[in-house]
C-alpha cells in the first residue's frame, strides 16, 4: 500500500469566519501500480485530497502515508523535496505553469530542481517530449508560441521528467478535444502498464473511468462514499443514480434495453460484448 489516509481531515482558513472543512475523516488506501480514478462533483474535496499526496497541503487532523513517508496533523515537515520528486502532481490546466524561454528548459526545470545536472535534464527533456508525442523541433521554441493542447503536453512532460513513482493528475483531459483527450489518457495508461507507475486521475468523464481505470474512489462532501474496482462500481446503478453520476453510454444503453424487456448480464461493460449479447438475444427470440 503506497498510499494510505487515516482519519484525515482538512480545514481551510481555520479560526476565521471563512473556515471550511473540506475533508472530514478520510480513511482510504490506494493500491500500488494501479490506475485509480477519483471522482466526485465540484467542491467535493477531490483536489484538496490529492494535494495531500505531495504535502502541498498538510492535514488538519489524521495522517497520510505516501511511499513510506507519514505526515501527521500538527507536523511541520522538512525535506519535502524527496517526496515531491517521487509524487508527481499535475494540476488542472498545467499549461499555466510554463515560464521558461524554451520548451527544453521548461521540461528540464523540475529535474534540475531535484538535483539532476543540466545535460542529464536536457536529455530527459528530449526523451519526455517525444513520449508525450511532440516533435523534437519544438524543443527550442518558446512554450508561449504553442497551442493550448501542446502547452499541456509540455507541462505534463515537465512532471514526467522528474521520473516520479506516483503520478497524480487533476483533470488532465479537461478542455481538450475528444481525440486529444483520448491520446492523453492513452499516455497515462502506457505509463501505468509499461512503466509501472501508480497513477491517480481526478476526472469527471465516466467513459474515461470505465475504459482506462482499474479502481474508483468517490468523494462527496469531504467524505469517501465508495471505493471499488471499476467493474463493480459501474454495476451498482443504484449508487450511480444516487450520486447523480451519468453512467457511460454502454451502461445507459444496457439499462434502456433491460427496461424494454431484454435480459442482459450486468457484467457487460464493453460495447462489442453488449452488441453480441443483444444479437444473440434477438436470434434466440426468433
Amino acid at each position, binding site marked *: 500500500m503506497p498510499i494510505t489516509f487515516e482519519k484525515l481531515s482538512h480545514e*481551510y*482558513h481555520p479560526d*476565521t*469566519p471563512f473556515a471550511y472543512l473540506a475533508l472530514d475523516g478520510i480513511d482510504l488506501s490506494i493500491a500500488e501500480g494501479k490506475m485509480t480514478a477519483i471522482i466526485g462533483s465540484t467542491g467535493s474535496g477531490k483536489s484538496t485530497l490529492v*494535494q495531500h499526496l*505531495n504535502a*502541498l497541503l498538510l492535514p488538519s487532523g489524521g495522517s497520510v502515508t505516501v511511499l513510506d513517508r507519514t505526515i501527521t496533523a500538527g507536523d511541520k515537515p522538512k525535506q519535502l*523535496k524527496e517526496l*515531491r*520528486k517521487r509524487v*508527481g*502532481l*499535475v*494540476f488542472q490546466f*498545467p499549461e*499555466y*505553469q*510554463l*515560464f521558461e524561454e524554451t520548451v527544453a528548459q521548461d521540461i528540464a*526545470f*523540475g529535474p534540475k*530542481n*531535484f538535483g539532476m545536472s543540466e545535460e542529464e535534464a536536457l536529455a530527459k527533456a528530449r526523451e519526455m517530449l517525444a513520449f508525450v508525442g511532440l516533435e523534437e523541433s519544438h524543443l527550442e521554441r518558446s512554450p*508561449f508560441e504553442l497551442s493550448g493542447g501542446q502547452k499541456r503536453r509540455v507541462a505534463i512532460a*515537465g*512532471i514526467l521528467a*522528474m521520473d516520479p513513482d506516483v503520478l497524480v493528475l487533476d483533470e488532465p483531459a479537461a478542455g481538450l478535444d475528444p481525440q486529444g483527450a483520448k491520446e492523453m489518457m492513452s499516455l497515462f495508461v502506457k505509463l501505468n502498464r509499461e512503466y509501472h507507475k501508480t497513477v491517480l486521475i481526478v476526472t469527471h468523464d465516466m467513459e474515461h473511468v470505465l475504459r482506462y481505470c482499474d479502481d474508483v474512489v468517490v468523494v462527496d462532501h469531504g467524505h469517501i462514499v465508495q471505493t471499488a474496482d471499476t467493474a463493480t462500481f459501474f454495476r451498482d446503478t443504484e449508487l450511480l443514480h444516487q450520486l447523480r453520476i451519468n453512467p457511460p453510454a454502454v451502461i445507459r444503453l444496457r439499462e434502456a434495453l433491460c427496461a424494454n424487456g431484454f435480459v442482459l448480464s450486468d457484467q457487460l461493460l464493453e460495447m462489442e460484448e453488449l452488441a453480441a449479447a443483444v444479437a444473440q438475444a434477438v436470434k434466440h427470440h426468433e
Partner: protein
Amino acid sequence: MNNIALGRYIPLNSPIHHLDPRTKIIGLILMMIAIFIPAGWFGYLLVGTAVFILTLLAKLKLSFLWRSMKPMLFMLVFLLVINLFIVREGDLWFSIGPFPIYSGAVFQTLYIVVRLMLMIVLTTVLTATTKPLELTLGIEDLLGPLKVIHVPAHEIAMMISIALRFIPTLIEETQRIMKAQASRGVDLEEGSFKEKVMAILSLIVPLFVSAFQHADDLANAMEARGYVPDQLRTRYKQLVMRGVDFLTLAVAVVLMVALIMMAWVL
C-alpha cells in the same frame, strides 16, 4: 497569504454594514480630519471612544482589527524610533547611550502612533463593512459633480472596481502557481540566491501571462456586451440615503467641530 485581513470585506449583519457607502466614505473623511486636529489627549480620548463604539457597532472582532494592523506594525515601530531620537523639544528626560530623549519627543511619538492606529482601524471598518462594489458605487456618486470639469468619474470607479474584483483572483492564481511550481521542486524558503531568483521568476512569469489573459478576456466580454465607457448607464442597485445616514453624518460633523473647538481653546 490566506491571512490577509487588510481591506477584506467581512459579511456580517450590523448597522454599519447597512449604511449607505457614501455616508461611510464622507464619515471616514470627517473622522480623519478629526484625528489630524491637534486637540491634546482629551481630543484623542474623544475620537478614540468614537472609533471604539464604531467597531462595536460594526461587530468586528478585536483579533481581526489586530491582524489588519499587523502589516503596518513595522512602519509604526520605525516611525516611533526615528521620532524618539530626532525630536528635541521639551525637557530632557534621560539618554539612551549617546542619544538624549526629550519629553516632547515622547509625546509627539505617542501622538503619531495613536493617530496611525486610529486611521488604520477606521479604514478597516470601512472596507470590512462595505462590499467592494458598493464602495465603488459610492465613489462614483461622490465624484459625480466633478464630471462638470471633465473628471471621468464613471471610468475611475470602473477601474477601481475591476482592480478590487481581481485582487482575490490574482491571490488565488498566485497560490495555484506556487503549488504547481512547488510540485516541480521549487522551494521559496531554502536554496541559494540563484535558485531563489529562479523560484521567483517561475512564479512571476506565469502570473503576468495569466493577468494579461484575464485583462484580454474581460475587455472582450465587456465589448461583447456593448460597454461604452462614457455612455449614460442605469443601475440595478440604487443608493438611497436614509435617516440613519443623515444621523451618522451629523454625529461625524459634530465630532469634527467639537475637536476644532477644543484645538481652538488650547
